[in-house]
């Protein structure tokens, strides 16, 4: 049983890493399920059981995290950043950003400060949490 869990975890992690690499691309559940060697329905269910959130929610928060990083580390305008991280409309981006972060992208940019630590830690720790 334990070995099966380990193999499933590792496959889900491999798929999640693929999402992290291609966060600006549309969510491709069939491709992710293939990476994990499971059916699409099984992938969504198992991903949620493994990481505590759906693939869609994970990707949404990854995109917002990447937007947060670009807002404080670059001078690119908000619309440009919205499309760069994978949102297809500024309205959806602004609404999602505010819902997850609690303030608008512009307000976040005003008080944000760039970090100078390895980006894997930044990505892991600044991805806005839905776990409370």
């Amino acid at each position, binding site marked *: 049983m334990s070995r099966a*869990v380990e193999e499933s*975890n*590792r496959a889900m992690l491999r798929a999640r*890493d693929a999402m992290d690499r291609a966060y600006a691309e549309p969510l491709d559940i069939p491709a992710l399920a293939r990476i994990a060697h499971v059916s699409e329905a099984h992938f969504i269910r198992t991903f949620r059981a493994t990481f505590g959130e759906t693939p869609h929610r994970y990707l949404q928060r990854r995109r917002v995290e990447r937007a947060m990083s670009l807002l404080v580390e670059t001078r690119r305008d908000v619309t440009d950043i919205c499309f760069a991280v994978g949102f297809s409309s500024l309205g959806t981006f602004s609404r999602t950003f505010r819902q997850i972060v609690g303030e608008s992208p512009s307000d976040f940019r005003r008080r944000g400060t760039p970090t100078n630590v390895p*980006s894997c830690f930044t990505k892991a720790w600044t991805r806005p949490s839905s776990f409370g």
Partner: protein
Amino acid sequence: MTMNAISRSQIYVLDQDEALDFYVNKLGMELNTDQDLGFMRWLTVNLPGDPEREILLEKPGPPAMDPATAATVRELLTKGALGGSLFMTTDDAHKTYEELVARGVEITDEPTERPYGIDFGIRDPFGNRIRIGQMFPRA
């Protein structure tokens, strides 16, 4: 303070033979010590030319931890939540990245320029993350 070096670091692996193959044949590290101590297999690797800094590739299990705890460690490791991380430096991040891609290593992040240097991320076969960076001189 009289401490002067970090001589050994440790990460958990699920299979020490597979770990040895990955760290030596894929990443290009060297076997430092492979010794059966009876209670455990002491397996360490180091970067070429740097034998004073070893990485212990430890397999979680009894008697160091009970079977249930070992299973938890293994489950956390495979979902990338155990926290094991290695940070290595290179003179040329892009070249090292291409070499590792050619060897089939799992890439988590492609080379990106950051304030501290150019770095990218990989995972070992078990879920540990490894960061490889071409660091800029510190100001």
